[in-house]
């Protein structure tokens, strides 16, 4: 699955009310703009980690702002 599709699947899995916003996501969209609360955001990360079978370090996490950053992180972790 393409990285952005995987992210959208993760958002849908943790908060179905955000489905309507998925179409508006662009690489430069900040992740915070999607309106997930902090618990749901980390749940989304957990979903991605599980699918990719990796652990993102806390250090990497705090330096990610946009969906583009997250896509790059996913692609890097897929090798």
């Amino acid at each position, binding site marked *: 699955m393409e990285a952005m599709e995987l992210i959208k699947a993760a958002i849908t899995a943790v908060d179905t009310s955000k489905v309507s916003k998925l179409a508006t996501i662009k690489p430069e969209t*900040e*992740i*915070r*703009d*999607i*309106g*997930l*609360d*902090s*618990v*749901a*955001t*980390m*749940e989304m*990360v*957990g979903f991605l*980690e*599980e699918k990719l079978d990796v*652990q993102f*370090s*806390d*250090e990497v*996490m*705090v*330096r*990610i*702002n946009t969906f583009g950053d997250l896509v790059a992180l996913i692609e890097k972790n897929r090798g």
Partner: protein
Amino acid sequence: MATADQTLAPATVVAALRRNRVIEDYGYIFLDNANKPTEFTYAALCRAAETRARALMGHGLVRGDRVAMVLGQPQDFVITFLGALVAGLVPVPMFPPLSFGKLDAYADSAVNILTVAGAKLIVTDKALSSVLWQVVPRVSTLRGLALVEKLDDGKRADGPLPEIGPDDLAFLQFTSGSTAAPKGVMVTHKSLVANCWAIATEGMDLTPRKDVAISWLPLYHDMGLIGFVVTPMMRGVAAVFVPTLSFVKRPNVWMQAMHEYRGTVSFGPNFAFALAARRAGEKELATWDLSHVRLIGCGAEPINASVMLAFVEKFAPCGLKPTVPMPAYGMAEATLAMSFAVPEAPLDVMLLDAETFRAEKRVVPAADDALALAFVGCGKPFSGHALGIMDTEGNLLGEDTEGEIVFRGPSLTDGYWQNPEATAEVFLPSGWLRTGDLGFQHAGNIYITGRCKDLIILNGRNHHPTTIEWAVAELDGVRKGNVVAFSRPGHDSEELVIVAETRPDPPEGLAETIKTEVADQLSLKVADVVLLAAGQLPKTSSGKLQRRKTRDQYLGGELGGEGVRTLGAAGEKLTVARHLARSLLGRATHAASKVFARPDS
């Protein structure tokens, strides 16, 4: 029940640590992010803490110096915390940056806490150090930053370790860093031992070699730190620590750990019960054995009886007893716990007549066809402690009347660090602590009904309404200074509501913009936005906003002036008593009948 005899309690946390050094076959197990366990017997824990104490002293820290801790891994946190206590230092637990971005906001609040605490050193790990190095130059008392991975390999102080007494300050518990002047609660060894001994004996009835405590709670927060690091130590009980982020990312790790390590006691805020129940799948339910679980305490945010019931029903196939959820009530100023419900007993849910309660603040059981409010009982205070209800003039009220909850006893902390004004506001000369919570007592039990202060509690974290209101006030079309934020009871837990007055012809989609702005700036989800014309928000005669009145009007469907009755949250919340009783008390499972005991019925 285990004895609450104070004469058996250790004098300090350090004394408890040393008393347990004879235990060489079990102690604390720390899981890492991959769930890999590292075990320290109580003997090893004591040795590790003494080594860490000498390492901290080797950094030139002396008794009474504040040492900030920003550590995400439980093993690093617990050993550094205990090491600091052994060295007579004052640890200042701080929250790590937890989510995407927002590094500037994180750095600002970290600087606020470090400055107020006058911290000399930050202990953190490699992963977080680059973030924390940025704050070091901004705090004049800081000498630098120490990496926990290298701490024990550096210079260590030799010579005797200090004698620690009951009146010594143990640590500073900061309740929020989001204001410019955060308050650090001064927790002494005396109050810590008084509270933890009461929790371990009366509260949880802990038995060494039988009980296993399991916690994913953040260790920079009182419930995780005091409830699960210090309390098990009082009785020499085994404990297992799961990193907080592991639970939030993968909620199943909580019950997985309860199953795997045969956990008997745990704790969580209301939202965690909902999250754990929502995420457990068929595969997990078929595998887990939770029959050994005695109690899972619920505190730190309003308790929703339906969520407790859903939790019990979800895990019934794993053998979870219906009496497992145990409401508790506490706050940092009282060290941690002020009351616990009776362990391993049915939930106490009171159904009150809604009209009488709203209009007269009096508790009258709801007749079957009357509108009812449901409140969950949080039990009685520990022996030697007292809870009371106070009116706004400072008079104590009797039972069955709503007022501010006050508390006193040996668990009271020494107030706020270097802040006598704030201390005097809530620590009254009469010995009572004003909690800022509203509630009533019935048959000696305490029921929490709301907040007198306007603090908003979402997902177990406290938020000051002003922070949220200011963010909204900046938006185009919003009348500055005319925004009110509060919480309403939601399906699972409290939800955020924003009410704002708008300028004439507000921009299109303003409600949506407000939701996005709050999510963007504060990572909070807004459940509802109400936009009003100018002059419709309730205000005092001097023009001050009235948050409670706004909330009451919202819940009553009366917001926006007379005659405009909208079916808001109140429409969902206010239910005729017999329906509420049926949904809470009378579900057709044998589990439910055991979970809920209805008082006065």
